């Protein structure tokens, strides 16, 4: 799957542009790191790549198709399914840890989801809180929940917004391992305000914000 941004501009208020003429292509599998200070537009860029927000100007090509000019909802959804984003602040819903982790996969794959959910819960050592209300766990635990929810969907493009904030050392290492493993076949895009040493070692490409207007 190839995803390309061509001369993408974005403004939330119609006056100030957060992104100015961004051109990037993601065609090869690998780890791409988007780096920049707070407010530089990392989240905005990731949400545009994730097909969540329509840029004010410019084109988003998915396998050569201009995504935002598509009319057919079914077709759009088929493309969208391959691109999954994880929010920087954990987005959780009333219910247990297990419910939240299986939210997406259950709807995609109603018959066979419990094994993979089980696998990830045990890998990240959260089996002991599986039935806990998601409002009673720590922010770091909630963050893991939301990352696992996305990981186990196995998307072709996975976008992680500040994935390591709130995580402890062991889980950071586990996640990095998974990222490296996944990046052999998939595109992993990570937004961060700080280049972690471990991330520096595994990255394939760095995209710095603010980008120069081209």
């Amino acid at each position, binding site marked *: 799957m190839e995803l390309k941004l061509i001369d993408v501009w974005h403004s939330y208020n119609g006056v100030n542009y957060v992104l100015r003429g961004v051109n990037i292509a993601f065609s090869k599998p690998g780890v791409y790191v988007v780096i920049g200070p707070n407010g530089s537009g990392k989240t905005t860029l990731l949400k545009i790549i994730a097909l969540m927000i329509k840029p004010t100007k410019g084109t988003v090509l998915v396998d050569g198709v201009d995504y935002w000019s598509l009319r057919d909802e079914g077709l759009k959804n088929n493309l*969208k399914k391959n691109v999954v*984003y*994880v929010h920087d602040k954990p*987005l959780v*819903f009333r219910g*247990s840890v297990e419910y939240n982790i299986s939210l997406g996969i259950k709807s995609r794959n109603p018959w066979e989801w419990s094994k993979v959910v089980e696998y990830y819960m045990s890998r990240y050592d959260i089996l002991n809180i599986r039935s806990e*209300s998601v409002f*009673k766990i720590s922010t770091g635990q909630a963050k893991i929940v939301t990352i696992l929810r*996305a990981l186990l969907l196995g998307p072709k493009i996975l976008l992680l917004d500040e994935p390591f904030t709130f995580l402890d050392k062991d889980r950071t290492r586990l996640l990095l391992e998974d990222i490296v493993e996944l990046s052999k076949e998939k595109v992993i895009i990570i937004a961060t305000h700080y280049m972690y040493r471990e991330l520096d070692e595994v990255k394939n490409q760095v995209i710095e914000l603010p980008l120069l207007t081209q």
Partner: protein
Amino acid sequence: MAESIFDLTLRSIYISSTAAAISFLLALIIALKLLDSSDKTRSIVIGVFEALVGVPTTVVGLLIYMLLSPRGPLGALRLLYTPIAIIIGETLVALPIAFTSMFRHLQSARYNVRELILALGLTRSDERSLLLRETAPILLSSYFISFARAIGELGVALIAGGGIEGYTSVLTTAIALQTSIGNYEYAIQLGCVLISITMLIIIPLRLLGERVYGA
């Protein structure tokens, strides 16, 4: 002798829970539709419902009376002074409170639900079911509020129902009648039943709901 408290209570519950159920469903349908409407339409509809929350039940009763009276536009249905007339009226009485008690919550839950749907690439039907699941406790209390409003009102039951003993008489009309004939003791008993019934139904169901739905 007046009819038994038990029969009166049962009739009250039956009529008001039916009215509450209909107004709840109507409110939910309107609210879900309104989530996708333009800001202007939304403000207007919210404003109308907020203004109608305290509408005098006698005015609604009068409206139903005029619609259903033999020479009214719906007179041919012969519904005046029947339980159905009360149900229709109480549905209208409870609708604004059913709507306003759920809408804001649906709206804010919808923001998060939509973020998730977009982030994971789920479908519109996932969006609907996740939204209802997420707001289930709110929807439950919205139904109870409608029920409390319906069972406690007098205007519609009296004007459109007529308080016919053994047929359309409910707790509130019986209280009015017993008071007017000076049977204060009985009226007070009915009043106590009316207040405790709402609590006896709502509190256990709430607790059960909290169990089922979590925090």
